[in-house]
């Protein structure tokens, strides 16, 4: 067997060397982008907020389209999540957009458990991805990623402060998803009140330790705009799909008797800022943060929960996978056992039922036999009676004939004289 010797000075200490001409690997980003374009992109937004805060309208406005759906009622018994997926296309970019809405959030009298369905939903998407990642035969690169990339938290435009429901919910979500807080229906607040409101909200978030999503400032090309935008959070938005003529253009707006709120006018609201940040500048970063931070955290916690530990330098490199497989086999074994048990039980029940039915059948037969016998007995009795009656009848007939005969004889004796007399008379 041949010996192998390695001399691999790899790693970070690689020397930089100059190129003597154009090689062509500067097309790598293009190659990579092309592959992604062919593959299509995925983006999943979760809208959390009370009923009536304009979540659906804002989505329609952001994506310039009319997503389906009826406005929901306010009498939901609990919080559910409704998700819809749409395929959008702009030039050659295909986007699979999933919009998840909370239904019934904030409508209940007791809102203690409101956040639970949301957390469960987010975790369920992580779980689905984790399951796929742990499979033996997996297809990760064609997996439809349903993990939530951005959570728009809709704050009611009270003008005062955050509701306790908002604080509790955001606190529960901030380690699981990128939260972007927005002030909904912000045309209900005046500009001066809005500034105060934003400051209040921001300070409450900070004092409660809520980690909202920060637009990244490490890339020089976007650092400036991102840090400016960070200071404008939470965005005060207005949504509208109706168009009004302003000047000689049709713009999205809300028309009031005292004026028109233009959605895309930066003096009127922060809608444009939201769109810039959410879609045009940081969509990719939102996806990356979800995968490298939130998902990894979920995965780590989940695996530790299941009892896995990382490997020590000199022992089992595959404790994770092997134990996982072992657990899975165990689970499958249990499942099979249960199945077997159920099958046995079923067979047993069938047998019992069958026996019951047989019993019943037997009884019926017996009953039938009894009845039949009864009937035969009766019949016999009747026949006997009939026979005896017949005998009686016969005897009676005999007696009658005998009596008649006697009578006739007696009559004949008298009758013949009558006859003689008749005859003599005639003569």
């Amino acid at each position, binding site marked *: 067997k*041949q010996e192998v010797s390695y001399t691999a000075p790899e790693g970070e200490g690689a020397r930089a*060397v100059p190129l003597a001409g154009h090689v062509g690997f500067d*097309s790598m980003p293009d190659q990579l982008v092309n592959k992604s374009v062919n593959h299509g992109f995925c983006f999943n937004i979760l809208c959390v907020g009370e009923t009536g805060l304009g979540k659906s309208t804002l989505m329609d406005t952001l994506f310039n389209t009319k997503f389906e759906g009826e406005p929901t009622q306010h009498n939901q018994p609990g919080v559910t999540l409704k998700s819809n*997926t749409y395929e959008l296309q702009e030039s050659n*970019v295909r986007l699979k957009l999933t919009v998840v809405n909370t239904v019934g959030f904030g409508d209940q009298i007791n809102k203690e458990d409101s956040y639970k369905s949301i957390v469960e939903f987010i975790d369920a998407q992580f779980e689905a991805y984790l399951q796929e990642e742990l499979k033996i035969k997996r297809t990760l690169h064609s997996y439809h990623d349903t993990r939530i990339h951005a959570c728009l938290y809709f704050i009611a435009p009270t003008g005062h402060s955050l509701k306790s429901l908002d604080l509790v919910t955001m606190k529960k979500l901030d380690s699981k998803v990128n939260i972007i807080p927005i002030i909904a229906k912000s045309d209900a607040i005046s500009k001066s009140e809005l500034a105060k409101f934003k400051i209040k909200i921001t300070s409450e978030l900070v004092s409660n330790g809520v980690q909202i999503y920060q637009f990244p400032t490490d890339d020089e090309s976007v650092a400036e705009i991102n840090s400016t935008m960070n200071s404008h959070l939470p965005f005060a938005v207005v949504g509208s799909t109706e168009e009004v003529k302003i000047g000689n253009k049709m713009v999205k707006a809300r028309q009031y008797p005292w004026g028109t709120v233009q959605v895309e006018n930066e003096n009127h609201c922060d809608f444009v800022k939201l769109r810039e940040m959410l879609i045009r500048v940081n969509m990719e970063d939102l996806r990356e943060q979800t995968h490298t931070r939130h998902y990894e955290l979920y995965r780590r916690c989940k695996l530790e929960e299941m009892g896995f530990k990382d490997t020590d330098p000199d022992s089992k490199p595959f404790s994770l996978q092997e134990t996982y497989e072992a657990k899975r086999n165990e689970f499958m074994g249990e499942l099979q056992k249960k199945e077997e048990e159920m099958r046995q039980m079923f067979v047993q029940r069938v047998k019992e039922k069958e026996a019951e039915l047989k019993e019943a059948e037997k009884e019926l037969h017996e009953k039938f036999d009894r009845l039949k016998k009864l009937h035969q007995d009766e019949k016999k009795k009747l026949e006997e009676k009939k026979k005896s009656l017949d005998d009686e009848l016969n005897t009676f007939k005999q007696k009658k004939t005998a009596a008649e005969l006697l009578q006739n004889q007696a009559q004949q004796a008298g009758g013949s004289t009558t006859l003689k007399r008749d005859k003599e008379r005639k003569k």
Partner: protein
Amino acid sequence: QQQQIKNRLSHLPVVVGSHGHATSHSSGGGSTLLGYIGIDTIIEQMRKKTMKTGFDFNIMVVGHSGLGKSTLVNTLFKSQVSRRSAGWARDEKIPKTVEIKSVSHVIEEGGVKMKLTVVDTPGFGDQINNDNCWEPISKYINEQYEKFLKEEVNITRKKRIPDTRVHCCIYFISPTGHSLRQLDTEFMKRLSHSVNIIPVIAKADTMTIEERQEFKQRVRKELEMSGIEFYPQKEFDEDMEDKSDNDKIREAMPFAVVGSDKEYQVNGKRVLGRKTAWGIVEVENPNHCEFAQLRDFLIRSHLQDLKEVTHNIHYETYRAKRLNENGGLHPISSNDTQESNL
């Protein structure tokens, strides 16, 4: 050299789908856009991100000594990136065993940084008895998969798992002019299922154009008969467009190449070439040899695809096989003994 972005509009229905998760389902709605949203900016966002993080690329060269492997790699990347130039002394003796020697460099072009690792295999095919000389190579390739897998199954994972997996293995065929040698087919047969193999005809300037064409045909036929699937493999063509592009490449392979890192003046231009008494063989001249085709194929159009096939297919195959072995994990011996106790 901007890559034309493939236009997919024609053969894709805009499918409107839906799926409900939590507790309610709802049918998907229309998707007619009335105005610019900006989702196509994700291309720029993605491009910026990848330029910031840079790329890793690992290329392996296999062939017996003297076939110009190091020179070819240097010519491909227009830089002294091979083992020979990295300070390793040119081997005085041909090693008695197959060694695996890898060397990494960072090269930059157009703002794109690439960490290029060249893995050389001196000693391959040089012995009298070359039995199993592919084994150390196969072992090395699998070890890189193993390394990656180990990182992937950690509880706390690195943000970016270092990728040392071999993305591409260039196999140098000796320009005998006759046919493939047994070692060639043996090697390629065994390794084509665990790594992307690109066969090239080395030192093509020793054959005339006609001889080269005939040799190529024969080699192609032999590869086909031995069932060797070299890169780009037919079964991984993603769609019709891919297939037609790749078919053209497959028909032209194996490329007959010449390597050189010396420049000469030809017709007023400085070109890379080999000077002979009867003329200068211009490396990048498509009439002289097929180096330019190889370079375009390898670097300018399929570099990312090589990585993806390695990651999505070869690595996954290794992983699935590995995870199916219940407890049958062989201790991987290396210089620092790290046995698995399972």
